[in-house]
């Protein structure tokens, strides 16, 4: 009912994706949600070598949010291609592989290796994971570093490149423009905010890693404000995320300027959140007499 769209050269059945790190490699969700109805699946970040991630506790709940310090735990690019991609390849949703690394060379190596595999529709460059000590955040905050990593990865791929932006910056417009200028085909806003929780009884941080990434409804106002600002400043499409729990929240991101949305933490609260939101968007279009949901993108900008 008017949910389909073209985004960065991909055709999507609808604008709803499940966010990196919150849907594993797709298969885990097969039993609990109708994954075939999704617009796209974004994998957990893939690095060159497998990683165990940070010590536990890696999770903490905060008011209307949660902290995670998973730290890029993943199977590594080889096992991903051998063991995880075959399942994803046969699914209806587009497959977007989230790429992370500690150095530009690692991003490039992962991208080059993934280019050799079939069944991938796009990459999402995670330049903003706050949970890795070396790399990650450094790329995500500095326009010059962003330009370098985006340019280097673009040079070795033919598939579309989404750059996932860090909200932990003074000026999201200048980091977003740096990604656009370096060749990004789309932007995903936002990754997690840096946060911390304290176990007052033990007088210690809750997370073994001390700080972690804040996600969930608590950060939605921050995500909306950033999408709103960046929409006015860049020409490439924006994928909005951060705290989307309900259909209304997805609509809010679209009205701020996002062409598509990703569902993250909501899947933990309700495994069918993404499919419920797809149905909700469709019902809303019917109710409001809207033929093409994309007509709504940026509606909040006068």
């Amino acid at each position, binding site marked *: 009912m008017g949910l389909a769209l073209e985004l960065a050269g991909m055709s999507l059945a609808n604008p709803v994706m499940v966010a990196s790190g919150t849907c594993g490699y797709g298969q885990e969700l097969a039993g609990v949600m109708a994954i075939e109805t999704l617009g796209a699946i974004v994998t957990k970040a893939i690095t060159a070598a497998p990683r*165990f991630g940070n010590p536990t506790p890696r999770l903490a*709940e905060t008011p209307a949010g949660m902290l995670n310090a998973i730290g890029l735990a993943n199977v590594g690019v080889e096992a991903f291609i051998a063991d995880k991609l075959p399942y994803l390849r046969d699914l209806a949703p587009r497959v977007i592989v989230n790429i992370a690394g500690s150095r530009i060379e690692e991003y490039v190596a992962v991208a080059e290796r993934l280019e050799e595999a079939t069944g991938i529709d796009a990459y999402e460059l995670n330049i903003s994971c706050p949970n890795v000590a070396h790399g990650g955040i450094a790329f995500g905050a500095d326009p010059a570093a962003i330009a370098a990593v985006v340019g280097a990865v673009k040079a070795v791929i033919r598939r579309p490149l989404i750059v996932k932006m860090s909200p932990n910056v003074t000026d999201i417009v200048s980091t977003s423009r740096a990604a656009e200028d370096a060749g990004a085909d789309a932007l995903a806003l936002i990754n997690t905010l840096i946060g911390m929780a304290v176990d007052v009884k033990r007088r210690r941080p809750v997370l073994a890693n001390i700080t972690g990434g804040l996600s969930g409804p608590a950060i939605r106002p921050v995500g909306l404000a950033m999408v709103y600002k960046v929409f006015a400043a860049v020409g490439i499409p924006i994928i909005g995320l951060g705290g989307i729990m309900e259909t209304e929240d997805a609509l809010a991101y679209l009205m701020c300027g996002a062409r598509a949305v990703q569902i993250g933490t909501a899947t933990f609260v309700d495994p069918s959140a993404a499919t419920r939101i797809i149905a909700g968007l469709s019902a809303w279009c019917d109710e409001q007499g809207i033929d093409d949901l994309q007509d709504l993108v940026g509606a909040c900008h006068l």
Partner: protein
Amino acid sequence: MPAVVAANRALGPGIHLLKLACEPPLPDIAPGQFAFLRPQNSDILLRRPLGVHDADGTRLDLLFDVVGRGTRALAAAQTGTTLDLLLPLGRPFPIPPPPALPVLVAGGLGLPPLHFLARRLHAAGRPFRLLYGARTAARLVLADDLASLCPDLRLFTDDGSAGEHAQITAGLADLPPEAHLLVCGPTAMMRAVAAAAEEAGLACHVSLEERMACGLGVCMGCVCRTRTADGQEGRARVCVEGPVFASREVLWDSP
């Protein structure tokens, strides 16, 4: 699935027995599996994992200790209010076939999955033993219930206020070689039991705890350190590869 609070009462200091009515009837649940739940419309975001204490048809019992915001919200859930449940999650305790002798070892609020297992073994007429320990008598809840399920029940308290004045590991001394330990309790206790089992050459499974966000294996939040088949260090997700593990697979953190 939604579940309605049928009763919610304190059995001991901060220890609540929550009785839920589920419609449609519950799927098959095996002891050691857990429910992942939250009160609807509460200010709690994430679900909390609780071992199934008992389940039958539409009835689900959970037993828990109030330790933080989530369990406080569950303790406050009034009769008639609705909770949201995912279940059954995780892998259950193995039920070792005869001649193995199941020895259930429950420390404190590690009781629920072993209570559920005890009921199943009792119903099946299987002989088994049950060791149950807590800090103090007031926290040694449901001891009468357990005695009716298992004539071989041994009770322990840290302060001697009920049962034997000893660590629960004292109960492991005179076990026969066909004993297979099935353990749930505080990490330090499970670690000690696992060490004693290894020493004595007994089979042993433990049910681990980790903070969980998804319960589905997607977030990688709940991992524990494991020894893989080829002796390497690995990681396993407690929510899907566990919570029950063979104790020799577990790499315990230094205390």
